[in-house]
């Protein structure tokens, strides 16, 4: 299987050979940042297009059809429009925070995004507390949302932001517990090792019942983290017009829009890394030939395939269910998901201690 690490190492060595260390480092940083942002944007466009088509299919309609073949260019048109749309500055808003908020949200999501392992060695940062870092980076997006709601000087935005705060902080707990289940199972927090450990079998199979429960809880909590239906209360179209980003126009709104979709990608990406083996191919013990064929499929295809499958699952959920009420959202977390998650963690620990895992 292709190890992406060899390419990056070669590039690194070449750069070091032609220029001083500091310059090489700087250049590498810029290159990596460019790649990350470019990939981020491209994936966002793919995601938005996918959302519109999938949603249409669930609703018996066709979705974008007329811009490009099968509407393929639809999202590009939206991006061009968005880029030149006027950005309104709101009278009597907190200008600094108001302008900062969308960047905070996007930064948090780019930062988390760049930690995802796309293939073997195809990862910006791989250190021993990778999972922990992802959690930390993803959780400061809520700060941007709170600031956006606060600084807009709009009552709808304010209510949306407060809802968002309550919701995201609650569901962070469940996400943490689900990730802990996997950490307990694998004994590491380093992402490359986590994936490596799944080469002979994905954690969702290895950890059987507790891992599966953790997967489901993770998907529910992840859906809530990304503010998507049935947890889209901070935006709640029919209640708060557009929630925390009511007052944002043009590209500022575009940032929130893109970040929402990319957070979904990130949640799905983490789910596929932790539970479905990331870039590790599907291996079934005993089927040697089958496993060999699977190995020919590149790791990034595996990763993206699994991620998009999870995304599709989440879209399916989104386009089926009605929205919940804020007290129900919070009670779902504290009365159901959190206790179940704790018990689940206990079960997993017992399983690991007794060696009842595959």
């Amino acid at each position: 299987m292709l190890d992406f690490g060899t390419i990056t190492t070669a590039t690194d060595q070449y750069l070091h050979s032609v220029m001083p260390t500091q310059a090489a480092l700087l250049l590498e940083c810029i290159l990596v940042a460019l790649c990350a942002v470019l990939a981020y944007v491209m994936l966002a466009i793919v995601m938005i297009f996918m959302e519109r088509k999938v949603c249409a299919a669930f609703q018996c309609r066709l979705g974008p059809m007329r811009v490009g073949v099968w509407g393929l260019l639809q999202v590009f048109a939206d991006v061009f429009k968005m880029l030149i749309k006027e950005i309104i500055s709101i009278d009597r808003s907190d200008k600094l925070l108001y302008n900062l908020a969308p960047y905070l949200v996007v930064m948090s999501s780019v930062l988390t995004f760049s930690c995802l392992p796309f293939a073997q060695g195809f990862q910006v940062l791989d250190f021993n507390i990778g999972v922990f870092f992802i959690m930390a980076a993803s959780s400061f997006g809520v700060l941007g949302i709170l600031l956006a709601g606060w600084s807009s000087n709009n009552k709808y935005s304010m209510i949306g932001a407060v809802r968002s705060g309550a919701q995201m902080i609650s569901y962070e707990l469940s996400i943490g517990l689900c990730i802990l289940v996997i950490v307990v199972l694998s004994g590491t927090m380093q992402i490359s090792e986590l994936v490596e450990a799944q080469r002979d079998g994905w954690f969702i199979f290895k950890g059987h019942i507790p891992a599966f429960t953790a997967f489901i809880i993770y998907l529910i909590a992840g859906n809530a983290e990304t503010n998507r239906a049935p947890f889209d209360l901070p935006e709640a179209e029919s209640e708060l017009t557009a929630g925390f980003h009511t007052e944002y126009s043009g590209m500022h709104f575009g940032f929130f829009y893109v970040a929402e979709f990319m957070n979904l990608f990130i949640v799905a990406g983490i789910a596929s890394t932790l539970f479905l083996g990331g870039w590790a191919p599907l291996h079934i013990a005993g089927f040697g030939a089958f496993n060999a064929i699977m190995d020919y499929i590149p790791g990034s295809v595996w990763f993206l395939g699994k991620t998009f499958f999870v995304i599709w699952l989440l879209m399916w959920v989104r386009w089926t269910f009605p929205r919940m009420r804020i007290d129900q959202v919070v009670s779902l977390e504290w009365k159901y998901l959190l206790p179940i998650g704790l018990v689940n963690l206990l079960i997993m620990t017992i399983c690991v201690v007794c060696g009842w895992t595959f």
Partner: protein
Amino acid sequence: MNPTFIDTEKFRAQMEELRRNGMDFLRDIIGMDWGEEGLGAIYTLENSSTHETCEVAVRCTSRETPTIASVYDLWSVAEFYEREVYDFFGIKFVNHPDMRRLFLRNDWVGYPLRKDYDESEAINPIRMENEIPEDVQRDYEIAEDAERELYVKQTNKIFGDQYIINIGPQHPATHGVLRFRLALDGEEIRKIDVHCGYIHRGIEKMSEKMTYPQILAFTDRLDYLSAHQNRHALCMCIEKAMGIEPTGRVQYIRTIMDELQRIDSHLLFLSCAAMDLGAITTFIYGFRDREKVLDIFEEVTGGRLIQNYNVIGGVQADITPDFARKVKEFCNYQKRKIEEYNNVFTYNTITRKRMIGVGVLSREDAISYGCTGGSGRASGWACDVRKRHPYALYDKVDFKEIIYNNGDCYDRFLVRIDEILQSIHIIEQLIDNIPEGDYKVKTKPIIRIPEGRYSAAVEGSRGEFGVFIESRGDKSPYRLKFRPMGLPLVAAMHKILKGAKIADLIAIGATLDYVIPDIDR
């Protein structure tokens, strides 16, 4: 049927007497301007158990300071009806707690439905400045730092210093241009103030200058989701007054179309309720199937929404040859699809959690507020006009009046779903037996109604729709009043909303199922 006028002094005692005698449903208050004889109002009452009706007319002689005693404590809905009469006629209701205008801006000059109202643009031009609510008092002070110009301190008489948010007029969940001002405590609603009139089009005033066939066109646009039933009511009223008896064929067609319209409206209700609760997919499913009804409408009447079908003495055009086949096809299709909505939305845990026990309207309140239609029946009040005062063919067909008893959002939702099935049941009984005959009775070219008062009521898609005509023998009415289906529902909002959250407001608004142009007229 000319009721005697009651003096304004004796009026209050008389009304109390009537209320004690079981007249617990105030159908409508019709403001009147009898010209020289003075201003006044006609109260139409009904006994909710015996269905006995009566009319009380009260007249005050003074045109400058007309006053009538308020009856808002006897019938809760009178609070809004009286505000409407005040708005249009300038009659002050003594002891009314909140005598503000209901529809027009508070800086409006004059009372439009009075006969001597001056309509000129100069008096009431289009005012482009924002309306300042009457309950808000603004104090202007010069701020300490000269940078800022003026410091505005706002005090509010209704809400005090509670946290107020505005929902509407442009808001996705108000189904049009209704406006609520809410006082919030966190997510909980403490108080609500409803503002109507953002689509008040003055239909009743315009009607006084138009001929009867011309007025017919307005009824379609009142509540566009019961366009057919509204028009049915007005045609019925005029036919009754002129002594025209429509043929059997017409009655069959009208009944079938009424029920199709009801299905259409309930499907839209279901879709919009789902959308308000965030289930956009169910919304699309509902609309997908609604198109099938609209196809039938378009085939027969030529209009999808505004059908223009009933005319005085019959219908505009005969049904098409394959009408019966298409309707039967649709009925069979729709029966299957109800199951789909139920599976994806109605029985869903989230939906049930959002709706069960939310926004309870008790039976007493439903009657007192006059909440007819599905909302009233969900509270256990058998208020279906089709059963109470049968018209057209409703005494000949077999159907069940759907009644639930909890009065919460979920019951209001279920009532409509079941009513779709009942409507299909009615249609199936009629569709194969449409008798031959003329689709229209010949009428005189100019339609005049003999002097007198006439009224008719039908069961619209969302309640009792009434028409009241006072004629002086001309080709246009002296006074025409439509009983709105939605106004009582909106009047009951503040009662229903006790202790609800913002999200509940949306669910309650969606399930009460009002259409704003019908409220505002």
